[in-house]
Every structure is written in C-alpha cells, then in structure tokens.
C-alpha cells in the first residue's frame, strides 16, 4: 500500500465518521480530495437520491462544480465516500453496480470509502482500492480502539 494512501486515509477517516453522524438516518456522501499544501480533506456533497436513507447519489451539477474546482486549484480526487446507516463498511452490491462498469472502475485511481453507522454512531470507515479485478479493502479506521 502506498504510504500516501495510508496518510490521507488516517487524516480524513475521523472527519468522515463525524460527517456520517450528523444525520445518521441518511447516507452521507461526498469526495475526498488532495489539499494544495499536501494531505487531504473531505468535500461533503448533498445526497440527491430519492431514498437517501438507503441510497446515495451525487448531483451531476455538484460533481461538475467539484471537478472544476479541483482543476482550478490543482487538486486531485482521491476517493468517493458514503455511509451505510445501520449497515456495514463493505461495498454493497448496489455500490459495485454503480462504481464498476464492464469490469472496470468507473473512476480510475479513485478509492471507494464506506462508513458503517450503527445506532447513530459511525463505527468503522473502510477504504477500498481497485486491484485490477475488483475493489478490495485497503485500509480501515475504527471508532473502537
């Protein structure tokens, strides 16, 4: 695992847990992007899904705006994140159906991060990296030491 991958994840995971707990009944979602000074930060975006308690969808205009801002500020997209209220930190079959197209990741070089929320508390944050054939758990952060 590249060291920078470990580094950004460790830095951002507690923040992602906090974002998922703000409204634990809805799937939180957004992007993780590099900082110009190094490191990374989370960009939370609204969940535009029709059933935000069980799905997430980033609004196309908001994705476009985020991508343009990244370009303008010289940042890179590291990961897409979302939470699973009352669910685990693994990518679900629905997540994979949206993130993988024809055996290839929709977003090359971008990790998928899932936050497990249990009774209002984010308990586990897990990053998944494309390994050539599928997404596999890359790194995780747990609320319980």
């Amino acid at each position, binding site marked *: 695992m590249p060291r920078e991958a470990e580094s950004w994840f460790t830095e951002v995971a507690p923040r992602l847990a906090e974002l998922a707990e703000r409204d634990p009944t809805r799937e939180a979602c957004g992007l993780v992007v590099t900082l110009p000074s190094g490191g990374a930060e989370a960009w939370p975006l609204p969940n535009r899904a029709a059933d935000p308690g069980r799905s997430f*969808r980033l609004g196309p*205009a908001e994705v476009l705006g985020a991508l343009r801002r990244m370009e303008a500020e010289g940042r890179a997209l590291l990961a897409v994140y979302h939470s699973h209220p*009352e669910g*685990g930190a693994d990518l679900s079959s629905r997540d994979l159906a949206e993130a993988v197209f024809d055996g290839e990741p*929709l977003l090359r*070089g971008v990790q998928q991060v899932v936050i497990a929320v249990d009774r209002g508390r984010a308990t586990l944050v897990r990053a998944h990296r494309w390994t050539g054939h599928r997404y596999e758990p890359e790194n995780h952060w747990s609320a319980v030491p």
Partner: protein
Amino acid sequence: MPVIVRLPAPLRGLAGNRSELTASGATVREVLEGLARAHPGLGPRLLDDRGGLRRHLGLFLNDEHLAGVEALEATLRDGDELTLVPAIAGGAPELDEARIARWARQLLVPGFGATGQERLMASRVRVVGAGLVAGPALIYLAQAGVGRLWIDDPELAGPGDLGGWLLGPEAAGRPRAAATVAALAPFSGFVAVEPYPVGGVPTATLVVASSSAQALASAEAARRARIPHVVLEADGEGGAVVSVPVGAPCYACARSATGAGRPPSAGGAALSALAAQELLLLVADPAATSGRRLELVRGVSSARPTTRLPGCACQPPSTPGEEPPPGATGG
C-alpha cells in the same frame, strides 16, 4: 457542427489523457457516436447497446444539465461545449448472492419477495421475555433474517426455561439474555443478536412476557412509541397472538378477557412460531397488515380483527383540532 467535449480527470485515461476533445455532430447523439468511434476505450461508457445514454454518465451542454430521454437529441451549434461527468451513486446493502441463497424460499412468497426481505434485513426487533415460550419465535426471527435481534430479559435462566427449543442445561443460572444471545449464534450468521438495552429504537417489538402486567406494560410502551408490536398470550398448549400495527386497537383492547392462561406446555412452540410469523409480516409488509387476534386452540388457529374498547386511550382523535385523549400520543 464542431463542438468541444470536456472530460473530467477520471475519464481522461480512456481518451489519450486529454482533457478536451473536438468532435462534430448536429446532435448530442451524433457527437457521442463520433467520440465512440474515435476513442474505442471511451465508447462503451457513453452509449449502451440500444443507443441510450449510459446511466453512469452525466451530460452538460454549456453548463446546462441534459437529462431524460431527449438529452441525446439536443441540437448543437458551432462552438458549443459538451461536458461529460461521471454519475456517482450507490446504496445500502441489498440481497447479495449469499443472502438470496439463504432466504430463497421466502423470497418466492408472493407479496413478500426481495422488498420484504430487505425490510427485515434493515429491522431491529426487540423481544421482551426470553423464557421457554420465546425460544421458537427467536429462532424463527433469526432464521428469517431480521437485521438485529435485541433480547430484553433481566431474569436468570431457571429450570423451567431449559430443555425447550433454545436453551440447554448450560444456560442454568446465567442471565437469560446472555444465554439466548449465545444459543442463537448458530442460527444468526446474517443477524446481530444483542442483549437489550442497546441504545437504539426498535423497528418492532415481540412481547413474550412472563406476566399479564408485564405484557400490558410492554405493549403500551410500544404503542406510545408508535412501534408495531405482537403480544403472545400462552395458555397451555395453545393461546393467542395479538398483532398491533401502529394505529390499530391496542393490546389492552384485544387481550384475553379471562386474564392469564394456563402455564405454557410443550405445544406452546406452535404459538411461539405463530407470533414470530405475525411479527415478520408486520415488518416485511406493514401496509398490508391490520390489527388482529389469532387464537390457537388444540392445534387449530383462527383469526379475527381486533376492535377498540370504548374510551380506550388508543383511540385516535377523530375530529381535526380535537384534543387527543390522555395517553393517545406516544413519546
């Protein structure tokens, strides 16, 4: 009609790492078809086999989002800018292959299906009372695939709890809740079983209380919290099961008028299973369930709709603006 096509960073690898392409076409469709021919790696991501726009893709024409079936037929002018954006979405766990295999039979039941199973998977079921009679119901609930099973019983397991469907001799003297969690482990590969309280609000409650007073109190607490619940009344080898969806006549309206029944015996397992089935229906298809009382007498079951007793606190206000009766609203 030459237009500029802008690609986001994650898609550039499919088009020679270029952020901007020039393409021609009178409509968006023609431009995308041209791109597909010029960049074979990008092509399959744009249009599907029937010529429709891939759901993984978003399109903007001069910063205006193109949506719907007409998006591809939008006409273009010289110098227009078409921007491709990846659609980013996903969802909570659904039925994967292992779960489909596990629950294949009940998935086939008309009116239950995948939607009902997903509701069960997302549910948190509190079971009040984990004594002898509750054993079969607990096993059914775990095997049916409820998401979380919360065992609410502060008592220790005594001789009367053992030798049934669930608790064996090793449970003697242990807290019933902890012993039940351990005993359910082999049945609950997809289910989290925990002692209650756990700090969350249940989706539904099954009351298998050891006394009428406890049954009444637990059912009333569930009603006030607007939690659908099922109450089991054991009576020898039979008894009754009262199903109370939100807003239905409460358990106090529908309970046995003769008070506590005979101590449960081995045949009570059928009643317990019936109670679990009622609760599963409440969770899996709440819109299709109404309040009812099922009687099980000498192995024969019968059902009747429950009715509200005059003046009961569970009566909802009938006139807009009317003050609800005391206790009619939950907290």
